[in-house]
Each structure stands twice: as structure tokens, then as C-alpha cells.
């Protein structure tokens, strides 16, 4: 093992004191240097002490975000703004179509309203004869 690959007990303790008892959380290089030492009970004790604090710290949990908060945040995103404008355009085209239909309907009503009421046609005929006379 080269000099560079060894780790002194002081350095091992310093790493445990900084990053805790799980060497998974240590930076890559010290972790690699520490792995051959783990079978030694002296180093195991150092990690156990650090783990006791880690376990205590892990008790402090935070509830996950609510769906409402996530939805509120997504609403502010650029995609949502684009979708909003896309919906707005669709809505405008819907209004255009509705306006065209309304215009056509109004036109139809106007034509009907302007037509002479008493045009004589169709003739008002009944079983008793022609009533338009």
C-alpha cells in the first residue's frame, strides 16, 4: 500500500467527526482510504460514536410538501405560462366561432323579422275554404 493510500487514526477520527459514522457519506478519497481499516475494532468504535449522533439527528424529519404548494409553484413556471396563452388562444378562437354562429343566427332572425307578416303566402286554407280573403 502506498503512502498516499493510508489514513492515520487522527485523520480517520477527523473524517468521522466531520461527516459522521457512515463512510458512505465521506468524500470519495478518504472513503477509499478508510475501507481497509474498517475491520479494526479501534476504527469501528470511532464510527459507532459518530453513528450515535447520526441516528439522533435523523430523528428530525420534515413533512413533505403538499400537493397545493407544488401546484402553486408549477403555475408560475414558463411552461404553464405558455399553456395559459395556448388556452387563451383556444378560448379566443372559441369566441370567434361563437360570434360567427351568433351572427348567423342574428342574421337569420333579422331576415325573418323583416319579412312582411302578411304576404298572402302560403294561403291560409282550412277545411272550410280559403280564409285569406
Amino acid at each position: 500500500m502506498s503512502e498516499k493510500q493510508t489514513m492515520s487514526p487522527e485523520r480517520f477520527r477527523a473524517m468521522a467527526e466531520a461527516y459522521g459514522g457512515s463512510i458512505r457519506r465521506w468524500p470519495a478519497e478518504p472513503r477509499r482510504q478508510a475501507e481497509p481499516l474498517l475491520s479494526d475494532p479501534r476504527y469501528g468504535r470511532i464510527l459507532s460514536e459518530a453513528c450515535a449522533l447520526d441516528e439522533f439527528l435523523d430523528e428530525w424529519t420534515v413533512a413533505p410538501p403538499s400537493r397545493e404548494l407544488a401546484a402553486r409553484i408549477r403555475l408560475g413556471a414558463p411552461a404553464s405560462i405558455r399553456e395559459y396563452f395556448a388556452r387563451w388562444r383556444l378560448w379566443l378562437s372559441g369566441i370567434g366561432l361563437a360570434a360567427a354562429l351568433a351572427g348567423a343566427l342574428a342574421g337569420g332572425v333579422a331576415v325573418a323579422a323583416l319579412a312582411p307578416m302578411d304576404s298572402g303566402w302560403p294561403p291560409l286554407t282550412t277545411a272550410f275554404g280559403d280564409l285569406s280573403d
Partner: protein
Amino acid sequence: MNGEDPDLALIERIARGEADAVRLLVSAKLPRVLALATRMLGDRPEAEDVSQEVFERAWKQAARWQAGRARFDTWLHTVTLNLCRDRLRRRRETTVAELPEQVDPAPRPDEAMGESQRSRCVEAAVRQLPARQREAILLVHYQDMSNIEAAGVLGVSIEALESLLARARRSLRRTLRLGVEDDE
């Protein structure tokens, strides 16, 4: 920056206005941002306000994000931390007279603590740490950031970060009475 930014592709999709990318980023990052803000501020509604503000900035930033300068996650944590620091500063300036009652974080020796009680003890103990030590613990232990990223967020060297962490952990062990001598 250490390695490629795993969030880069997502940020580029957000800049193009892809709604799915927004959804993915919010579900991946909001729990982290909210957890940091909640632990920094100790106030859930305020932490939610901060989270919303962080993402408002993120949406603006996405369009002009420059790869290679910093990881997006590091930037997100820096913004969160800065917004929390601002709020804590304002809180100190305006509510000194209304400080909540200090909780003694030390568990009684003969006490078998429940989960929620342990949680409150830890929260109180972490809150009593000096600001820089508290931030170091929050970033490395709770946010699971690498030493390089956490040092970047705090604007300190790796050695300084390790010193902050070691002092914080020693102090926490003393406060929580986890069998450590007063060695400072």
C-alpha cells in the same frame, strides 16, 4: 464544477417551456428546498413562501442558465439559504421582544424519549448552533450535499467546512448528552 450537472437536461427543457420538465423538477427539488427552508426558519408557512420564491427565481434563471458555472442544485441551495438568512435577519430586527421560549434540547438522563420528543430535542439543539455551523450541518447531513457543493454554497474551503462540521457535531453531542467530553 465537479462532473456534469445531472439537472442540466431538465433545465434546458424547462427553458423550452416543457410542462413535463417543470413537473419533474418540482417533484425532485421542492422537498429538498422546503426541508432546508423549514429547518432554517422553523416556520412551515414561511418556509413554503421561501420555496415558492426560490422556484420563481428558478423559472427566470432557467432561460439564461449557463452550463459549467455551477450545478443547478448548488445554485438552488444558495438561493434558498440566502432567502432564509434574509428572513432570519429581518426577524431578529423586528421581533426581538417576541422571541419564543427557549427549549432545553438536553434530554433528561432518566427519560425514555419518544420519537417526536427526540425530534424536538434535535431541532432545538441544531437551532442553538452558531449560524455557520448550523448551515454546514443542514447542508451536509440533512441535504446530503457533497463537501465540494456544501463548501461552494457556504463560500468556504473544504478544510473550513470540515472544521465547521466537526465543531457542530461536537457541540451537538455535548448538548444532546451523547457521551463526549468537553474537549473544546
